[in-house]
């Protein structure tokens, strides 16, 4: 555990010294928040809970890129070889990616909540406990998914290409950028198989509807199972050496990482509960915007 913590602090220190990383991890999410509030919110405080959920989702999903990608550079440059000479396991190296991503996402998450509440007059704080749970598990899950990509790609270019493709899927099918309720039914069902959807729905529920930890339990469990499997898969596929080949069984391991989301997607598709939450969140949002109805004759 102490090795993991040592690596975590080192990697956080390196990350904040990297201007590009600092911009994309710290400045960009805040700019994104301001843009979303100005473009979508247009001063409507009743929208802020929903917008916060979406912004937090994008921030937490950013862990998918984060320091997991840094491992590919470390491997390419032979830096991991030097670490391999020390009494250090792959687990510590991978866990340090997850922890450092989390600790660096946390201040931004707090800042985003504060800005929404204090600067843009969000009507409530949302359920902070539920938000904390989802941010914690979500950040770890997306970091672990990023680690899998880092493990099966050989170069930074390859990693970025694959990450971009997956990221687009996360971004548009999570509901964080376009409300899932606006999608046709079949696409909503496809989204149920994507981890980002559970994070977005959970955070929107906690941010806009004050959903409790128990009410976002399904989302949390889906993400937590995804984390456990993804971490083990990335540990199995981890390579210290730049010239080490991706093992043939890698594809099977990658498929294994999808199993929790396939199971949850199928389950939710059958029960329809998640789709109900998605549409409920959206209807409440629309309801808040609709003009008050007049009742009775004048």
């Amino acid at each position, binding site marked *: 555990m102490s090795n993991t913590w040592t690596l975590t602090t*080192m990697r956080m220190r390196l990350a904040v010294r990297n201007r590009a990383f600092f911009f994309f991890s710290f400045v960009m999410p805040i700019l994104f928040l301001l843009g979303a509030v100005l473009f979508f919110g247009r001063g409507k405080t009743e929208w802020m809970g929903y917008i916060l959920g979406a912004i937090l989702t994008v921030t937490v999903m950013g862990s998918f890129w984060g320091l997991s990608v840094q491992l590919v550079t470390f491997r390419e440059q*032979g830096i991991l070889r*030097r670490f391999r000479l*020390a*009494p250090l396991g792959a687990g510590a190296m991978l866990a340090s990616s997850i922890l450092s991503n989390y600790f660096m996402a946390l201040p931004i998450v707090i800042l985003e909540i504060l800005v929404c509440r204090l600067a843009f007059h969000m009507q409530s704080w949302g359920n902070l406990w539920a938000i904390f749970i989802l941010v914690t598990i979500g950040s770890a899950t997306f970091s672990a998914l990023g680690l899998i990509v880092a493990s099966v790609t050989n170069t930074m270019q390859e990693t970025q290409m694959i990450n971009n493709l997956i990221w687009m899927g996360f971004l548009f099918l999570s509901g964080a950028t376009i409300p899932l309720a606006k999608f046709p039914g079949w696409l909503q069902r496809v989204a149920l198989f994507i981890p980002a959807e559970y994070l977005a729905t959970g955070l929107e529920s906690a941010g806009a509807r004050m959903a409790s930890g128990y009410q976002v339990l399904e989302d949390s469990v889906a993400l937590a199972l995804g984390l456990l499997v993804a971490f083990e898969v990335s540990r199995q596929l981890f390579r210290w050496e730049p010239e080490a080949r991706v093992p043939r069984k890698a594809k099977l391991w990658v498929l294994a990482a999808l199993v929790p989301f396939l199971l949850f997607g199928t389950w939710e598709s059958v029960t329809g509960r998640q789709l109900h939450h998605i549409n409920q969140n959206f209807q409440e949002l629309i309801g808040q915007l609709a003009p008050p109805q007049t009742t009775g004759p004048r």
Partner: protein
Amino acid sequence: MGDPIIQVEDLYKSYGAVEAVRGISFAAERGEVFGLLGPNGAGKTSTVEILEGLRTADRGLVRVCGLDPSQSGHAFKEKIGAVLQSTSLPDKLRVAEAIELFARFYQRRANTDELLERFQLTEKRGAFYSHLSGGQKQRLALAMALVNDPEVIFLDEPTAGLDPQVRREIYDIIEELKRGRKTVLLTTHYIEEAERLCDRVAIVDHGRVMALGTPRELKRNSAGTTRIEVRLARPVVNGLLAHLEGVSDCREFAGTYVLHSAKPPQTIVALVKQLETENNELQSLEMFSPSLEDVFIELTGRRLRE
């Protein structure tokens, strides 16, 4: 001799169709500086990386401090220190941070300030790794190899590509390790490095140990000939110089004829006569007592850095 601290027996390693190591065997004693001397591609790095636990052997027996590097995990890594052929660290890692970082991974830790002082890095303690010169990077790599006060230190071509001044600094550090009774396995293709630093040397070529012994023994056991290097105004007919009196071997390297002679005075007299007959001129002549390079040429038929 006691139990060897490094033991290698009949080691084999292939990369696809390329056989990098073909039956290497040697043993190093505690407190010994043992050298693997050979040209690039001889199998030195593969051997040392198997000993460090970075690669697995195809077959053969390997023991370091009585442990199998491929099986012993962290217990083994606590006992060794290593400088890789090419050490890389994150660009934005500071010098002192690098030493502290690696020290924290071990149970036994050296003092960072002492290491910085010992490796003349105190002034650079706050510098980013990317801002260091080649020599400073190598000194840092050496300092990092000693953060756990290891029993065995592997140095894979620690002075390759460094200028002579820095190389001498590294030699001083290795000599200090030697005085401290550390076991050092050093790979090199620099003759002077092996002669100056190593207690014993294994000459390696094409994945095999060609000869093994102290530098003195190796030179003594060679043909014991004097090397005469001559440059001539015009090339001579192939093989002509090989028949001069006392000459046991003659080869040409980039316009220089290298003769090995058991009777140097007679050879020189015969050479001058031969050149007069041929109407050729002697441009330069140098004589050397046998060196490890000569031993290497004798064993392999080529120079170390060809």
